[in-house]
């Protein structure tokens, strides 16, 4: 039997990665009406209050899923975000059946070309290079363009001597792009190493859920690894493990608090505290964060 906890009201569409369907209209956490029901405390809350509170339940602090663009909006200093590589858009490299339609649908629903947004910005006055993955774009999966954009960002940041802050959310490598998506794990890791060897700072913030090929590459390669409360962070998702070992998983398994206990994240930071937390880290690394004045 699967543990009920993993199938409680969906916190986000990625936990149901299995059905290959993602629709923002069906996203139970953010319906289009006035109230939403919090999947954690089950209370009815005003959607506007929840959004005002950074997509966090004002009653129990449950962190709702949010789009990459909203995240950038609340995280960066007003007017400082300058998007990079937005012209890159994915194609059906392997002529995989159904992939063209899936891409078109994801683009139409999200208004984005791909599942990651890259750019430069200021956080608390400090210049940074930033990438934020989008949970709604084919389950936040990593295809070749996601890999290419992130690689370019690290190369750009290395050249401009900027720190990188990366928000991860992903169902893993995008299987419709076959081996070429797997290769993005190596490619992005190479770019992280290049940036790291230049003595520059990289901070990752793991959000719910971060799994598969993203966990096994740039998500876990930060100098400092932060996580949002209760975020699922895994290499293999709970359902895959339960199918493999045919036993129930322990309570809280693969949640951020579990990773903290096991030594794989530096700290769990509430979404509303992240901006000041990141600002303090940047301040403490000021010598390594000055940038080349490219802002």
């Amino acid at each position, binding site marked *: 039997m699967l543990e009920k906890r993993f199938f409680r009201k969906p916190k986000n569409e990625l936990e149901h*990665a*299995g*059905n*290959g369907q993602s629709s923002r209209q069906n996203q139970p956490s953010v319906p289009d009406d006035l109230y939403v029901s919090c999947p954690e405390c089950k209370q009815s809350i005003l959607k506007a209050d929840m959004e005002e509170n950074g997509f966090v339940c004002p009653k129990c602090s449950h962190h709702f899923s949010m789009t990459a663009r909203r995240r950038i909006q609340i995280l960066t200093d007003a007017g400082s975000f300058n998007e990079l590589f937005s012209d890159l858009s994915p*194609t059906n*490299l*392997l*002529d*995989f*059946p159904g992939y063209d339609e899936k891409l078109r649908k994801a683009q139409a629903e999200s208004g984005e070309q791909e599942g990651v947004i890259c750019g430069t910005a200021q956080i608390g006055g400090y210049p940074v290079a930033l990438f934020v993955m989008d949970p709604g774009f084919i389950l936040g999966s990593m*295809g*070749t*363009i996601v*890999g*290419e954009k992130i*690689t370019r960002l690290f190369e750009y940041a290395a050249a401009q001597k900027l720190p990188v802050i990366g928000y991860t959310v992903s169902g893993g*490598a995008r*299987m419709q*792009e*076959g*081996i*070429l*998506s*797997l*290769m*993005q*794990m*190596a*490619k992005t*890791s*190479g770019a*992280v*190493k*290049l940036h*790291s*060897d230049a003595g520059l700072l990289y901070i990752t913030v793991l959000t719910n859920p971060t799994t*598969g*090929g993203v*966990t*096994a*590459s*740039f*998500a*876990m*390669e930060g100098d400092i690894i932060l996580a949002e409360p209760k975020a699922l*962070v*895994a*290499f*293999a998702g709970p359902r*895959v*493990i339960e199918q*493999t*070992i045919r036993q129930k*998983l*322990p309570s809280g*398994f*693969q949640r951020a608090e579990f990773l903290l206990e*096991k*030594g*794989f994240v530096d700290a769990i930071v509430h979404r509303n505290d992240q901006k000041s937390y990141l600002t303090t880290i940047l301040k403490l690394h000021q010598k390594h964060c000055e940038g080349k004045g490219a802002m």
Partner: protein
Amino acid sequence: MANLSLNSVKESYASVKESMKEIMQPYAEKVQPYARVLAARAKNRPTSQSFIAGLTEDFLEFHGDRRFGDDAAIIAGVARINDMPITVIGIEKGITLQESIKRNFGAAHPEGYRKALRLMKQAEKFHRPVLCIVDTSGAYCGIGAEERGQGQAIAENLMEMMTLKTPVISLLIGEGGSGGALALAVADQVWMMENSIYSVISPEGCASILWKDSQKMQEAAEHLKLTAQDLFDMGVVEQIIPESSPKEFSKVYAVLKTMLYDSFQSAMQKPVDELVANRYQRFRQMGIQ
């Protein structure tokens, strides 16, 4: 690199090629890519220990990651090819059932990947080339593997292998299952045995996720482009090594050994910075249209 070209290797195999029919015969009724998948998983297929015995002399196995334990799914140590010392690391599925159980059927835990990295760093220190032999359905999916950071272990290998200051060749001999295979395949060159496969997901997993029907694995195998030829055409691997029947694999080893020796010799002549820069570029251009 002064490699034997694919064609010259194939010519030297003219007689051996005949026995390929014997290997593929049981799968003749399956559609082509899936027949390769079955051949790659075949029980009588030579495993890493057979390759190590066939390709190297004086192999000494070294154990443990110095952090948690020793993972029997990965065999690693030092050996030599002719007069050249190398570090060799192979994912081992096991031959008998009992051995396969001990080796977790070639599904490694984080400590296996950490042992591999430890020995790669040792190879870097003593500037000897590294041969990685890959044969896994994937990194293990289990409680202990997650608790000990399977994702982190793989990620660290990807990052560290990219700048390892010594030549690395990865050889896929059977299954190349996703991140668990890639964790030993960030190399200067990746070679595939003719009947090996390399994929982001198993055809069964892909069919079950996309079409809710794991029986559509033949279709999935076709679309995933996972055969050695597909990957060669996409520029993901540099060499396809023709095979013979498992009984006559010594002929394969003889050719492969020459190819490895020549490639490592030529790589050792190159400045290390150039080697590392080429490795970065090798992966950097993948997926750019």
